[in-house]
C-alpha cells in the first residue's frame, strides 16, 4: 500500500494492518518532524509538497524493488504532505517478512530511497523566515549551509 496523504498518519493502524500468519517480523520506520534551533530562531512547522502522480509512482517502484530483492510479503509506505507540526509523523514505512533480517533491511532501504528519488520537498517555516531544505533557498536572513 502506497499513499500520499494530507491528514495525520495513523501509524498504529498501518502496523496492525501488516500482521500476517506467514510473517514473523514487522519492521516499522516512522520519520517525524524535528524542531531545529539556531540562535533565537526555531522551526515552527514544516510543509511538504509532492509532484503527483510521479511521487506515487516512485513509492510503488520502491515497494516493487524491495519485493524483488528481499523475501518480504507486505510493504506499506505513507508520506504526508501539507503542513506537519513538530514531532508528528511525516512518513511511515511498514514491512512484514517471514524473518526479521529482511524486514529491517527493507525498511531501511525504503527510507533511503525515498530521500533519493521520490519527488517530495520540505520547507522549514522558522520564526524568522522559511527555507527549502536541500536547496537552501528561502527568506531567512542567515541561511544555514548544512
Amino acid at each position, binding site marked *: 500500500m502506497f499513499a500520499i496523504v494530507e491528514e495525520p498518519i495513523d501509524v498504529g493502524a498501518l502496523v496492525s494492518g501488516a500482521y500476517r500468519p506467514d510473517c514473523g517480523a514487522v519492521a516499522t520506520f516512522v520519520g517525524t518532524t524535528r524542531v531545529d534551533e539556531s540562535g533565537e530562531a526555531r522551526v515552527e512547522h514544516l510543509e511538504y509538497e509532492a509532484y503527483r502522480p510521479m511521487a506515487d509512482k516512485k513509492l510503488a517502484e520502491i515497494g516493487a524493488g524491495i519485493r524483488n530483492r528481499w523475501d518480504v510479503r507486505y510493504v506499506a509506505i505513507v508520506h504526508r504532505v501539507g503542513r506537519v507540526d513538530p514531532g508528528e509523523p511525516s512518513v511511515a514505512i511498514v514491512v512484514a517478512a517471514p524473518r526479521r533480517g529482511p524486514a529491517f533491511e527493507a525498511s531501511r532501504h525504503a527510507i533511503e530511497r525515498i530521500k533519493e528519488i521520490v519527488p517530495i520537498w520540505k520547507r522549514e517555516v522558522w520564526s524568522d523566515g522559511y527555507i527549502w531544505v536541500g536547496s537552501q*533557498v528561502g527568506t531567512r536572513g542567515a541561511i544555514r549551509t548544512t
Partner: protein
Amino acid sequence: MEKITVRLFGAAADRAGTREVELASETTTLDELWSKLADRHPELSPMRPTLAFAVNDEYAGGDARVEPGDEVAVLPPVSGG
C-alpha cells in the same frame, strides 16, 4: 500548436514565482527547453546544477526528447522523509 507544460516545484517554484509555465515549442530536447525557460525566468539559472528533470512523470536527462503536449517537471533536490 500544442504547448509544452513545465511544472515547477519547491525552491524552483519559489524562485520563479510561478508553479507552471507553458512554452510554445516544436519537438525539442530538455536542454533546449531549459534555455527557453531560463530566458523567461533568469532567476532559475543559478539553480541549474542542482536540478533534475522529469518528462511525463519519469526522470530524464538533458538530451531527452520533449514533444508538444508533454509535461516537463523541474525538480530541485528532493527532501522528503
